[in-house]
């Protein structure tokens, strides 16, 4: 049973078309950023409900004098409420980039803010933290880096008990972490890893989600494989992360998403995956995959793919580790329900997020490549035909599907027997009609295996005008040798 989670979309007065357009623009920007290896995103925690109560969210640009006045009132006002109101006004002003710039240029402003952050007036503390949070979210490096003097305090407060406050500190830290290596070079010696390791024992879901976010930002850093991941692996964080990913009634989607991505960044950096395997990562992730497949059938929840994606990646990469192959070990992944789950998820991807199909098929490849057992399951669970149906989606998907089919076929006649006849021949003839070299190449590989292991396959191929289908590719450099070899085999046996 998945606990409730916040909805992804909310109407904000914009038209649906405008929303889609903006999303496309953002997506394009993110792709470009990723190609330049500059993929950075920050989270902003703003309590909209409070803002509406405060009278709309018109963001006012504050000038120097106003900022100074608010700071003065906050620091030395006589009445509690007056001091709070001053900080609230400052915070709202700081939502605007111009106010942020003015603020950081004002001498002593950060110092005052940090003083308020560490004061013993709880509500002032909270508001000061919110101000810092706004600053941390800025895209301007100078603004975010102005928050550096506060980091030792943010870390100290992580071992406190006020969950709202801790959540705020964590999101602020997460935003700062992603800002620059200089920031991380300060945070690491200040003890961010042990602080997070202590904080992850909190029972509050909001705190855990925030922590997962901050940690995922830390693990995504360029220097993480060398400098950060070893520290994380040496702490108690991995065990706690795996615990938080255990399927069951207590699993919270928002929390799980963050920690699954943390695990992905750790695993794909290939620092010490064997350690994770000994801690039961394969088992936990395998069970989680089963749970996800069940959930996907039950709910229309948009957002499950956000969790499925990193889980699939983690499993797939972990399977390539030598430690995963230890025969008979309890940590090994051998349960054929994983295959059932994966196909249910592939169907889910097909409808919700086709761009994730290649990742699912990549996992399928890693499950079947060296495993006669899983190849047998593919056959006994009647999954060959559904697999063939994916061949029309895209070239990348087709190559992967054909690769999986080759994984099955290369294991010999007992396997090819079950691939034949069915839809396989007409489907292969269809793929030979395509022009993508990689797709055709993989089809040729599969044909060789079938000709080799399945009596009558070459004959049937000829009868269905297979030779003509091959002729198309006789002049293609990467294909011609294989085309000729197949023609020979078909004709002369």
């Amino acid at each position, binding site marked *: 049973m998945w606990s409730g989670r*916040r909805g992804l979309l*909310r109407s904000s007065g914009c038209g649906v078309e405008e929303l889609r357009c903006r999303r496309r623009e953002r997506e394009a920007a993110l*792709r470009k950023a*990723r*190609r330049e290896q500059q*993929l950075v*995103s920050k*989270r902003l*925690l703003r*309590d909209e*409900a409070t803002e509406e109560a405060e009278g709309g969210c018109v963001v006012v640009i504050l000038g120097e004098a106003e900022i100074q006045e608010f700071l003065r009132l906050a620091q030395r006002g006589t009445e509690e409420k007056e001091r709070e109101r001053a900080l609230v006004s400052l915070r709202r002003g700081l939502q605007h980039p111009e106010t942020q710039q003015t603020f950081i240029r004002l001498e002593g402003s950060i110092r005052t803010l940090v*003083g308020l952050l560490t*004061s*013993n007036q*709880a*509500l002032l*503390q909270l508001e000061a933290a919110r101000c810092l949070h706004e600053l941390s979210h800025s895209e301007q490096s100078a603004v975010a880096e102005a928050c550096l*003097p506060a980091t*030792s*305090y943010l870390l100290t*407060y992580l*071992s*406190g*008990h*006020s969950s*709202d*406050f801790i959540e705020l500190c964590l999101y602020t830290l997460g935003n700062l972490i992603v800002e620059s290596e200089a920031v991380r070079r300060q945070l690491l010696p*200040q*003890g961010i*890893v042990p602080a997070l390791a*202590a904080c992850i024992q909190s029972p509050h879901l909001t705190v855990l989600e925030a922590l997962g976010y901050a940690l995922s930002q830390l693990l995504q850093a360029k220097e993480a494989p060398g400098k950060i991941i070893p520290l994380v692996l040496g702490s108690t964080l991995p065990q706690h992360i795996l615990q938080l990913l255990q399927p069951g009634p207590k699993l919270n989607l928002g929390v799980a998403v963050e920690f699954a*991505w943390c695990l992905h960044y750790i695993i*794909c950096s*290939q620092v010490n995956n064997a350690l994770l395997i000994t801690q039961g990562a394969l088992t936990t992730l395998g069970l989680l995959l089963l749970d996800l497949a069940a959930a996907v*059938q039950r709910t229309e929840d948009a957002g499950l793919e*956000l969790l499925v*994606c990193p889980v699939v990646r983690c499993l*797939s990469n972990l399977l*390539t580790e030598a430690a995963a192959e230890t025969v008979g070990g309890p940590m090994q992944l051998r349960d*054929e*329900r994983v295959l*059932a789950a994966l*196909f249910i998820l592939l169907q889910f991807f097909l409808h919700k997020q086709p*761009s994730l199909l290649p990742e699912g098929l990549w996992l399928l490849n890693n499950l079947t490549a*060296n495993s006669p057992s*899983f190849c*047998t*399951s593919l056959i006994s*669970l*009647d*999954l060959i*035909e559904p697999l063939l*149906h*994916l061949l029309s989606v895209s070239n990348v998907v087709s190559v992967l599907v054909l690769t999986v089919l080759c994984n099955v076929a290369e*294991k010999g006649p007992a396997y090819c027997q*079950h691939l034949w006849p069915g839809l396989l021949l007409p489907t292969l003839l269809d793929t030979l009609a395509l022009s993508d070299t990689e797709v055709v190449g993989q089809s040729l*590989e*599969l044909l060789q295996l079938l000709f*080799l*292991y399945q009596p009558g396959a070459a004959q049937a191929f000829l009868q269905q005008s297979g030779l003509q289908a091959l002729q198309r590719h006789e002049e293609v450099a990467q294909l011609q040798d294989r085309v000729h070899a197949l023609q020979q085999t078909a004709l002369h046996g």
Partner: protein
Amino acid sequence: MQLPPALHARLAGAPGAAAPLPVQRDSLAGNAPFRFAARQVRFPREHEFFEDGDVQRHLYLQDVITQVAAEPERPRVPEFTCQVAGCCQAFDTLEDYEHHYHTLHGNVCSSCKRAFPSGHLLDTHIQEWHDSLFQILAERQDMYQCLVEGCTEKFRTSRDRKEHLVTHHLYPADFRFDKPRKGRRPASQVSTEAIGEDRAPSEGDAMEVCSEQAEAHSEPPRERRVYSHRIPSTVCFGQGASRGFKSTKKRSKRQ
């Protein structure tokens, strides 16, 4: 993509692996000009294969502002006041009260009423300020523990500890939770402490941890130090207010 109906039943069924069909390979398979070999593939973090999924992840991160709005509104309750003796703060939401309680009454030293942001700092404070045994031991061994959680270094004096905090952990030199006791600090520190400390509410000032006099250049005479610990600098009403939600960490035996 039609899935066989039995598949869902299999998912819900018992764990198990299929008994594999016999494997029998021909040496010609995958021979030139063919090249197929079944093999697992791993992708490193920056591989373009991950582009789509990564982009989706970041769109989600950027979308959070719309998520927060869907959260249930904080219920406002009729105004109430804090029940801790001597505190008369008023609140109209439980979350505000929670934060207030934890900040001011959560980790409070029962001797001098100072509040601390964490149990760890409270414990360190009690040990260094209110435990004469600590002072005795400190003459012979390194007793001042580093304030950073996870760091096990100990030091002979609090000044050495501060040095360590600044150079090793990049803490600010005026870190608020490592200030010498009030009344004994040198003039040069006054200005930095003025900020945020110019009011002294009933709960006592800030969250000083270290007890050593900042101007001490050499070890102060033993008697004087023990003496100063027996008389706390703020009046304690002796009610022995409990420390509230305190962890099960070990306490020093003395107050």
